[in-house]
């Protein structure tokens, strides 16, 4: 097979030269390049997604943080089960502490990883449409947030049963769907906040420090008089997303949640996207 035949729109065909006129060329070097490869079609998004999901767990740090999260979800559910009245909703909710801390970290690492080891040089050469890579990187942590929320609920059910059996306490099996939905939503928002911070700063340590210290900072700001209290009330995502789990969110609460989500997710993500598109990759 000639190279010209191999690549339908091979430029060498349009530029007759002694080299391409020789049909006996081509070689073992070229091997079996086929599969679903097509040079004339953009890389399908699902492929970028598969690659970015794999990058999340194919290094030690990614693998460790994923395992630690799964482990902490189980541990926190079991630990809470040992001390409170058996109720799956309460037990699962405890896992929110671990998820609220580690989901943003996972999200930050996926966004900043390319810049720590300069693998961006490879990634953006294979897919120069950088916004597609950003989008592909955003999906796995959000999916992980949903999956781990449901996983916490799944773990909570047998733990509740065991605690009720062992302790002889009647279990409260009441799980409000709206609570589960709202609580999952909180975890997704927390992951999205991590993604946005990571995309904006492209620096893992800085983003992780900001992500982990903001709850403390808001507690301080909330006590700085009426202005501080108003700021915390409207911008502290951890506070504003709490009503999601109650199932009877008011318009005011919705407005506060939207405001803080714009402030922590939409604005930094948009700024991060612009930065990424303009950035010199070195």
């Amino acid at each position: 097979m000639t190279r010209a035949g191999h690549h339908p729109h091979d430029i060498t065909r349009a530029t007759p030269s002694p080299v391409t006129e020789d049909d006996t060329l081509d070689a073992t070097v070229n091997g079996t390049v086929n599969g679903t490869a097509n040079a004339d079609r953009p890389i399908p998004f699902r492929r970028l997604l598969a690659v970015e999901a794999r990058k999340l767990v194919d290094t030690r740090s990614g693998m460790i943080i994923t395992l630690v999260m799964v482990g902490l979800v189980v541990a926190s559910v079991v630990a809470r089960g040992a001390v409170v009245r058996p109720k799956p909703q309460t037990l699962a909710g405890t896992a929110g502490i671990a998820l609220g801390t580690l989901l943003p970290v996972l999200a930050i690492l996926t966004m900043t990883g390319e810049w720590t080891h300069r693998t961006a040089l490879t990634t953006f050469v294979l897919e120069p449409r950088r916004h597609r890579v950003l989008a592909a990187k955003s999906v796995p942590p959000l999916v992980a947030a949903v999956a781990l929320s449901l996983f916490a609920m799944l773990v909570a059910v047998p733990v509740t049963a065991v605690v009720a059996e062992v302790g002889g306490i009647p279990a409260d099996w009441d799980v409000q769907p709206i609570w589960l939905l709202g609580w999952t939503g909180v975890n997704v928002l927390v992951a999205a906040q991590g993604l946005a911070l990571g995309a904006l700063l492209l620096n893992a340590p800085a983003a992780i420090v900001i992500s982990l210290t903001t709850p403390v900072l808001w507690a301080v700001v909330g006590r700085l008089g009426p202005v501080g209290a108003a700021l915390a009330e409207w911008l502290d995502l951890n506070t504003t997303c709490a009503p999601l789990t109650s199932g009877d969110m008011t318009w005011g609460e919705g407005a506060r949640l939207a405001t803080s989500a714009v402030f922590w997710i939409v604005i930094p993500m948009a700024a991060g996207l612009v930065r990424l598109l303009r950035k010199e990759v070195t």
Partner: protein
Amino acid sequence: MDRTGQVLATWVDLWTAAGIAETRKAAPRVETHRTPVRCGGARPRGALSGMIEFRHVSKIYGKVRALDDVTFAVGPGSVTGFLGPNGAGKSTALRVLVGLSRPSSGSATVLGLPYAEMACPGLRAGTLLDAGARHPGRTGREVLTLGAMTLGLPRTRVGEVLDLVGLTERESRRRIGGYSLGMRQRLGIAHALLGDPEVLILDEPANGLDPQGIHWMRLLLRHLADSGCAVLLSSHLLHEVEQVADRIVMIGRGRVLAQGTVEELSRGRGLEQTFLELTAHTDRSPGTGTFPGVDAGRGAA
């Protein structure tokens, strides 16, 4: 000397435009091929005709002109060495070429298109910009697998390119953190070859390779060029370039100083002498009697 370089550059432009980039054969005189070959609608505007084209590319960082009106082309079937001291602008030019950096003016194209506008550039052009830019925790095989996945290639391709660059099965399963620079270069070249590209863009690929490695790379690049590939490789080491390239583009302080075949640039005095003279005014190299790559490199570092 500058004038000679200019004349030479013009000469080579015309010569490249004539579509006879098969440079290892005795170069036909340009006078007989003055008319550029126009090919279908595939080649847009201008006089150059190559699989890689730089047209008046300038890149300005603040007050520094990293690239200053860089114009050259690489045709099919040739290995072109991009030679210049450290800091001359080689890496900047290659980053501009693959869309990682935006030129301040001018344009660079691969196969007639700006790289970033190609649908799936990894299948048409193979790129190695920095063999060190890898996650140390991934194995060589994992890096190639990610590349193959991205490009939609079968996993068997990973084994093929590993064989091609001489990395063993065991080496490929080790973490890159433990690789020597030579192994990283081989891995980088393997990655560039994944998509069976028509164009190869390699930044300092011979760095860290031992003499056997350089010999191997020469054979590999020669083979690829003979099958119609256009290869552009940069180096600050003249002897490396001399060994693998059949054409050379010399760059200093962001400007193309001269370009042509190795024989042309030697002009009976040796390539080294030409290189030294051309870079003497643009860089802080001592300019006499020393190996230019080394001294110019130190001077500029």
